[in-house]
């Protein structure tokens, strides 16, 4: 976030300029500018339907943006084509999108683990199918990632036999195994029973200690405050206010931000 105190390093890893997304006639993202530098931890907060998920999904191209530009390590994603009438459109090759999605990992609210694979097979899958690593190497790496999220004793257990918190940690290990440059979390604890939220949040905090670059959509404002180097308040498809956790949570400048924080704090701060 360029307008905020400069981050630890140089050029942004991930950057969007005037990012737009429409579903049919409805514009959900209305021009988002974002600068994510190495080591940044950005919490995205906002009301339901404000476009938080859509923003994340456009950043790893699960959804294709309908306007604007996205840069990964300074490289523009997509190929611009100019039609004969001078109008421009952006096309994406599947190969390019696959590579972007590998480099920008994502953890979902619903985990989306593969139910027919054990924990370790879930984590190995990308290493074997995408990275073409030999099985034995992939297995060792997967075991290491599962250990990192505290699941060394669940390697051969299937997702159906894991608690929600454990499933989410497997999903985090699966994303980590791909060595992503940026990790996106879309409400990773929203579908968990309250007593399981803590273990997942602690796992995310250990990633923060390792200096990982992360974007996190969450309704847990207390956690966002502890976690984030930057906070973005999204309102109706635009960045309404942005700043450090201190600025957004303790001293919001705009009326809507203040109202949102006040409304949410009754539950979570």
């Amino acid at each position, binding site marked *: 976030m360029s307008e905020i105190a400069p981050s630890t390093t140089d050029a942004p890893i991930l950057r969007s300029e005037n990012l737009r997304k429409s579903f049919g006639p409805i514009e959900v993202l209305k021009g988002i500018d974002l600068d994510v530098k190495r080591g940044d931890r950005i919490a995205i907060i906002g009301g339901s339907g404000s476009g938080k998920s859509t923003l994340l999904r456009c950043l790893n191209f699960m959804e294709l943006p309908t306007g604007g530009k996205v840069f990964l390590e300074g490289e523009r994603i997509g190929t611009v084509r100019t039609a004969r009438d001078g109008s421009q459109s952006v096309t994406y090759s599947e190969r390019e999108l*696959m590579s972007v999605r590998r480099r920008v990992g994502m953890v979902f609210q619903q985990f989306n683990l593969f*139910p027919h694979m054990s924990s370790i097979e879930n984590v190995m899958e*990308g290493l074997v199918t*995408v990275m073409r690593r030999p099985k034995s190497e992939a297995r060792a790496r997967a075991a290491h990632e599962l250990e990192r999220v505290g699941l060394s004793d669940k390697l051969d257990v299937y997702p159906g036999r894991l608690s929600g918190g454990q499933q989410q940690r497997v999903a985090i290990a699966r994303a980590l*195994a*791909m060595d992503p440059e940026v990790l996106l979390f879309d409400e990773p604890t929203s579908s968990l029973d309250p007593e399981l939220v803590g273990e997942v949040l602690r796992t995310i905090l250990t990633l923060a200690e390792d200096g990982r670059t992360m974007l996190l959509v969450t309704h847990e404002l207390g956690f966002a405050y502890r976690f984030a180097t930057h906070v973005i308040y999204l309102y109706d498809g635009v960045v309404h206010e942005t700043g450090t956790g201190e600025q957004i949570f303790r001293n919001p400048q705009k009326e809507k931000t203040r109202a949102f924080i006040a409304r949410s704090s009754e539950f979570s701060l």
Partner: protein
Amino acid sequence: MGYQFDFSMVVKILPVLWRGVLVTLELWVICLAVGLVLGFFVSLARISPFAPVRLAGRSFVELFRNIPALIQLIWFFYAFPILIGAQLTPFVAAALGISLNTAAFSAEIYRSGIQSIERGQWEGAMAIGMSRADTFRRVILPQVFRRMLPAFTNRAVEVAKVTSLASVLSVHELMYQGRVLSSTYYRPLEILTTVGVVYLVMIYPMTWTSSALERRMRRKA
């Protein structure tokens, strides 16, 4: 009822019935194998992003699902040769008709199976950089096979029954042998009853498996 049962002659005809059983099994296995493989490709056509391909898949399925199987078999034996200018043996005509019929029904099983897998599975795989093809092969299909196993065994039962229609083309399968034997010996009651029991013995294990699988899936869900 003064009818004198004579099941002793059933022992005499057993070798002939056994030959019929072998032909029935052969037809069953061939049609099921061809139907399941072909049906898979038809289901891919059914969900293709290209409208003309989808229409072709759809037409194939509706054609074979909505015309009685008996007519399909007779058509392949008497009408199809005129189109291609070559005679088919009764066995080949029957195998062709039943296989295509099986393909149409299996295609619908695959399709509903594929469409029943949650979007999240595609997204989970795509989020680690997997291609659509790899996702389909490694993540979606294995779940389709599992989920649709009861439907497939159910289809296998139906195919076994449909093979009996091949008797009208004089394929020497179980039903045909039964009909010929009963008119040779003038003992339709004993012989056709025996034939029915033989079908029951062949098919029931499959039916049992199918419903056992369904029960197990329900318990898991």
